[in-house]
């Protein structure tokens, strides 16, 4: 109903394939960004930053990563958390062992390290499909965590295996306040989300989707299966890696390998299932949902003063049933629901 598309005609392919071809969408996005960059920092409380906003952003990033691999390239992975761990610990070690290295560079290097691991464990994807592949990613999950716990070098011989992330300093500015960390995270996430969006709407993205939808046809039309899958693994891992680094540096501050357990992998998988496979927007929606739901449940439990343990079990059950629910009812998740709603608005007042 708020869409006024008449007269928004395109005279170039660039404008036709623009990120947001519809004016109203552009405006909407800009408003959204304004809210996140300007409004929220003014109003939000430290709790809001540390408990909701920052984790939400980080999970979104990880979800984008997994979505690239699973949602777009169709390769199921249960090892996102492992990629995150690699990213985090690599960043830590780069910072540690190369003094005075800019943190952003360290983040990138962390991502790259994750990407390399991703490529290594992506290799089997040429020969094995479906959940066989999932199993190899599971193997990686365990293997990586084992390495990080068993090889003290990674944790700089910290007895507890816990590492303390170095201070985040960019061009002399120290990101110690929650707001500053939030803004840093937000900037990185927005930028990488934009890049992801670009990748999935160009040839790269088409190659992934082609492999996902019909690998034989994709090969016949000239996409190299292995190369395509490996790029997906690499980029996915890179995104997860950076997310993992942020997880350590702007969210927790101190982490142990166990923070990146299989459970985290599953949660990220749930995010994209609920949010929407093959949709960048979905990654955000899913992350938001998965961040808010537990909080909601906690409130609920508090409100009826039920035993605290129930909250966590309730959480597990809700997640579980939601996954099943979405897989059955709306396999494309919240993103699709959003899309349907949008279509309705565009056609308003007509039904079709």
């Amino acid at each position, binding site marked *: 109903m708020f869409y006024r598309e008449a007269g928004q005609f395109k005279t170039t392919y660039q404008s036709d394939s623009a990120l947001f071809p519809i004016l109203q969408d552009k405006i909407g996005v800009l408003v959204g960004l304004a809210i996140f960059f300007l409004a929220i920092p003014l109003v939000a409380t430290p709790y809001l930053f540390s408990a909701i906003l920052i984790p939400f952003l980080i999970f979104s990033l990880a979800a984008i990563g997994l979505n690239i691999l699973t949602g777009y390239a169709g390769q199921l992975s249960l090892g996102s958390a492992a990629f995150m761990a690699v990213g985090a610990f690599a960043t830590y070690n780069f910072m540690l062992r190369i003094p005075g290295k800019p943190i952003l560079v360290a983040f990138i290097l962390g991502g790259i390290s994750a990407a390399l691991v991703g490529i290594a464990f992506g290799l089997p994807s040429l020969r094995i499909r479906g959940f066989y592949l999932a199993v190899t990613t599971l193997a990686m999950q365990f293997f990586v965590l084992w390495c990080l716990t068993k090889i003290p070098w990674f944790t700089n011989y910290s007895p507890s295996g816990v590492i303390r992330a170095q201070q985040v300093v960019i061009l002399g500015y120290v990101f110690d306040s929650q707001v500053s960390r939030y803004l840093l995270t937000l900037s990185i996430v927005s930028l990488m989300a934009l890049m992801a969006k670009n990748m999935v709407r160009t040839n790269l993205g088409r190659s992934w*989707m082609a492999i996902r*939808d019909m690998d034989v046809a994709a090969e016949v039309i000239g996409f190299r299966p292995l190369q395509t899958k490996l790029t997906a693994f690499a980029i996915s891992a890179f995104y997860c890696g950076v997310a993992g680094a942020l997880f350590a540096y702007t969210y927790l501050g101190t982490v142990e390998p166990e923070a990146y357990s299989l459970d985290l992998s599953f949660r990220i998988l749930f995010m994209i299932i609920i949010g929407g496979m093959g949709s960048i927007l979905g990654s955000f929606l899913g992350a938001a949902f998965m961040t808010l739901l537990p909080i909601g449940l906690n409130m609920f439990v508090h409100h009826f003063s039920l035993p605290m343990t129930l909250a966590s079990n309730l959480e597990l059950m809700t997640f579980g049933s939601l996954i099943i629910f979405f897989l059955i009812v709306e396999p494309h998740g919240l993103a699709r629901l959003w899309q349907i709603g949008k279509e309705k608005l565009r056609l308003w007042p007509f039904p079709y």
Partner: protein
Amino acid sequence: MSGSSKLDTDEVILDMRNISLSFGGVKSLIDVSFDLKKHEVRAIIGPNGAGKSSMINVINGIYRPQKGEIIYHGKSRKSMHPYYAASTGIARTFQNIALFRGMSVLDNIMTGRNLKMSSSMLMQALYWGPVQKNEAKHRRKAEEIIDFLEIQHIRKTPVNRLAYGLQKRVELGRALAAEPEILLLDEPMAGMNVEEKQDMCRFILDVNDQLGTTIVLIEHDMSIVMELSDRVLVLDHGSKIADGGPVEVRNDPQVIKAYLGSN
């Protein structure tokens, strides 16, 4: 428009020699040889399970024959490889539609351009100027094909929402987008109604004589084969039983027998 008149050259561009293929004992092709002349429409016919699709799958390297050689671009090889086939200008459609179901018509056709696109991952991530221009350039190509196949109205529709006939058309479009030298069509008209078939025939002929594409065509409808093809290869139970012009093939007693025997 069709007919041997346009066979300006007799240059053989693909020569399949004594191809034999089997799956775990099941013989699918037995010592089949045939050649492909530049710019011709080559039909492969035969009863179900005669090995027609297998032959196409051998040509573009999805199956590797156990015996035989393939002479292509002057080089002799044991078997093709899909990527090699694609990159040297062999495109195809599939018997059961093999579109990328999650994508729009336009994107499906754009995938056909991928071998002609070249920009690095990072460039695409940043959507750098060159990438945009590149995308636009190929979009134009894709649009020309859309225009050619008269599917402007469904340009941005997800393919899985399309009617069967249109999906077939889009698949042809995807193959054409690769500007192939050889086009393999595996029953492009299966399950179509009369007018859809007529359209498809028109497109195939136009492709053949406007773009000069060499076409290998699997088709059941004899009348269509007669109308379209310059030469016909007849397979039955994996072996070649006839090869020649449409008319002579139709009158070949063995062929008649095979067809009557088959159903």
